[in-house]
C-alpha cells in the first residue's frame, strides 16, 4: 500500500499540550491548574437564548458570514469598546471559534515562502496553521525582562524582505502579558513602514486588569492592515459553543469568507443566536467575571511570592507564567515531577514555544478552594526541592 499521508502534515509536531494531557489523564485524583478556559458556566440569559432559538426551530444554516443581527452587534461592540468601526456587511464574519479565524486569515494572506512573524510563548496554533498555509513561521522569542511584550527591537530584528504577516497575540496566553497603547503605537509604525499585515488575536481583550485593552487596528492606517480576531469563548465563558469572529478590510475578508464557505459553511446557528444575547446584555456578566479573575490573579501572585517562585505580574487573560529556572530542571521535568509527586497538573512553558523553557503556565480559572489546595501542594513540592522539608 502507498503511504496514505501527506509529508507536510506528518512533519507537523502534535501540540505539546496533547502529550502532557495524556500523562495527566492517567492520574485519577490530580488537581489541575492546566485549563485554558473559564470556570464559569455561560450566563443563563445567554444559554436561554440558545435554547429559545432551538425551540423556535431555528435549526438551519445561516448565511456564510453569519447572522446579520450578530454581525451588527459585533460591529457595534467593537466600536463602543475599542473605537474601531467596521461595516457589518463587508468587514466582519462569524467563525467557529477564534481558532478558525486564525487559520483562514493565514490561508487567505500567504503565498508559498511568505514569512510570518510569531512572537512566543504564545497559543499553539499559529505555527502549524502557518505551515499548513504554505508560509514560513519565524519565531520572535519574547523575554521576561520585557514582561513578555513585543518590543520594536525584537520585531525589527526578524523582519526580512519576505516578511508579510505579524501575529500579535495580546493579551497573551500563556504569559498573561498585555501591550499598552503606546507600545502598540511603536509596533504599528514599523508595520506600516515595512508594509506588513497584522493578525491580531484579541480573544482575551475583555480580560485585562488595571487598564482597558487597546487594539492595534485603532491606530491611523492600521485598520487596512489588520485582521482583528475575537470571540465569545473567554469573555462570556462560551468555549463549547465554538464561536468567534474576524473583522478585516473587505479585500482580505472576502477571501477568508471563501475558505470558510467551502470548509465550514457557517458557524453553529444556535451559538450565533446565543451570542447576540451575549453582546446585547452581557456587559455586566463580563464585569463580574473580570473582577473575580482579578482577585484570584492577586491571590496566585501573592502565593508565588510567598513560596519563592519568581513570576512577573500578568495583567491579562487568566494565566500566570512563573519561572522555575532556579531549580535546574526543564519545564517538562518540573511539571512531570509535580504531577507525580504532588498530583498537581500545570502546563510546561515549552508547550507554547521553545522560549517557554524554564516556565510553567498556571491558570487561575479555578475556585479559591481548588487554588488553595493546589498551591499548598506546590509549596510542599518546592520546599522539598529546596531541601527544607
Amino acid at each position, binding site marked *: 500500500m502507498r503511504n496514505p499521508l501527506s509529508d507536510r502534515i506528518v512533519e507537523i509536531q502534535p501540540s505539546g499540550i496533547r502529550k502532557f494531557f495524556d500523562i495527566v489523564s492517567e492520574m485519577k485524583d490530580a488537581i489541575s491548574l*492546566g485549563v485554558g478556559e473559564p470556570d464559569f458556566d455561560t450566563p443563563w440569559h445567554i444559554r436561554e437564548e440558545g435554547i429559545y432559538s432551538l425551540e423556535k426551530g431555528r435549526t438551519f444554516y445561516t448565511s456564510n458570514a453569519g447572522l446579520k443581527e450578530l454581525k451588527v452587534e459585533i460591529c457595534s461592540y467593537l466600536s463602543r469598546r475599542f473605537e474601531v468601526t467596521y461595516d457589518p456587511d463587508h468587514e466582519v464574519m462569524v467563525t467557529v471559534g477564534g481558532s478558525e479565524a486564525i487559520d483562514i486569515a493565514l490561508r487567505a494572506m500567504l503565498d508559498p515562502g511568505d514569512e510570518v512573524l510569531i512572537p512566543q510563548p504564545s497559543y499553539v496554533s499559529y505555527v502549524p496553521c502557518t505551515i499548513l498555509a504554505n508560509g514560513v513561521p519565524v519565531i520572535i522569542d519574547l523575554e521576561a525582562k520585557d514582561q513578555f511584550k513585543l518590543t520594536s527591537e525584537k520585531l525589527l530584528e526578524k523582519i526580512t524582505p519576505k516578511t508579510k504577516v505579524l501575529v500579535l497575540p495580546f493579551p497573551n496566553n500563556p504569559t498573561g502579558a498585555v501591550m499598552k497603547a503606546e507600545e502598540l503605537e511603536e509596533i504599528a509604525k514599523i508595520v506600516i513602514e515595512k508594509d506588513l499585515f497584522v493578525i491580531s488575536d484579541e480573544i482575551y481583550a475583555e480580560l485585562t486588569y488595571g487598564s482597558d485593552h487597546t487594539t492595534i487596528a485603532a491606530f491611523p492606517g492600521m485598520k487596512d492592515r489588520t485582521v482583528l480576531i475575537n470571540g465569545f469563548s473567554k469573555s462570556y465563558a462560551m468555549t463549547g459553543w465554538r464561536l468567534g469572529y474576524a473583522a478585516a478590510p473587505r479585500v482580505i475578508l472576502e477571501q477568508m469568507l471563501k475558505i470558510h464557505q467551502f470548509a465550514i459553511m457557517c458557524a453553529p446557528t444556535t451559538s450565533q443566536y446565543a451570542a447576540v444575547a451575549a453582546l446585547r446584555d452581557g456587559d455586566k456578566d463580563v464585569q463580574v467575571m473580570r473582577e473575580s479573575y482579578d*482577585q484570584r490573579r492577586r*491571590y496566585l501572585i*501573592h502565593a508565588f511570592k510567598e513560596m519563592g517562585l519568581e513570576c512577573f505580574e500578568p495583567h491579562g487573560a487568566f494565566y500566570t507564567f512563573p519561572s522555575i529556572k532556579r531549580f535546574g530542571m526543564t519545564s517538562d521535568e518540573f511539571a512531570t515531577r509535580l504531577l507525580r509527586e504532588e498530583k498537581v497538573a500545570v502546563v510546561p512553558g515549552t508547550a507554547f514555544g521553545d522560549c517557554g523553557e524554564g516556565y510553567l503556565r498556571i491558570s487561575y480559572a479555578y475556585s*479559591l478552594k481548588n487554588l488553595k489546595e493546589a498551591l499548598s501542594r506546590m509549596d510542599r513540592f518546592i520546599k522539598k526541592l529546596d531541601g527544607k522539608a
Partner: protein
Amino acid sequence: MREKILAIIEKNSRIDLKDLAILLGENEAAIANEIADMEKEHIICGYHTLINWDNTSEEKVMALIEVKVTPQRGMGFDKIAERIYQYSEVNAVYLMSGAFDFTVFIEGKTMRQVAQFVSEKLSPMESVLSTATHFVLKKYKDHGTVLAEGTTDERMLITP
C-alpha cells in the same frame, strides 16, 4: 472597598481575613477595620450558615404567611411588625407592596406546630385582618445558592 468586601463575604463569610486582603489587594488591618465598622453600623448584621435541612434527619417545616393588617394610628406598620418578629418561631418578616402587607416566614417542627402558631398567635392579634399560609414543599435555591446538587468541574484537565 466596602462593596467588594461585602460581595465576597456575602458568599463566603468564613473566608480568612488574610485571604480576603490578598484577593482585594488591600492591607489586612484596613479590611479588618472596615468590617468592624460595618458591624457597628449594622451593615453586617450577622454571619449565618446556609443549611439544607432536607439532607439531615431533622424534621423541619417552613411556611410563608401572607398577612393583612390595619395599621393603627400612631403605630404604623413597624409596631405591628415588631409584635410579630419577636416570636422565636418567626424567621423573617418583610413589609410588602401589593395585595397584602407582611410576608412572614415561620419555621416549625411539624405542620401542626406552624398551624397552631398561626391560629393561636398570629391571627388573634388585634391589627391582623387575615392570613394565608403557604407551606414550603422544597427549596431549590436559597441565598443565591442552588441546594439541589453539588457542582463538579467537567472541564478537561489540560487544554491549550
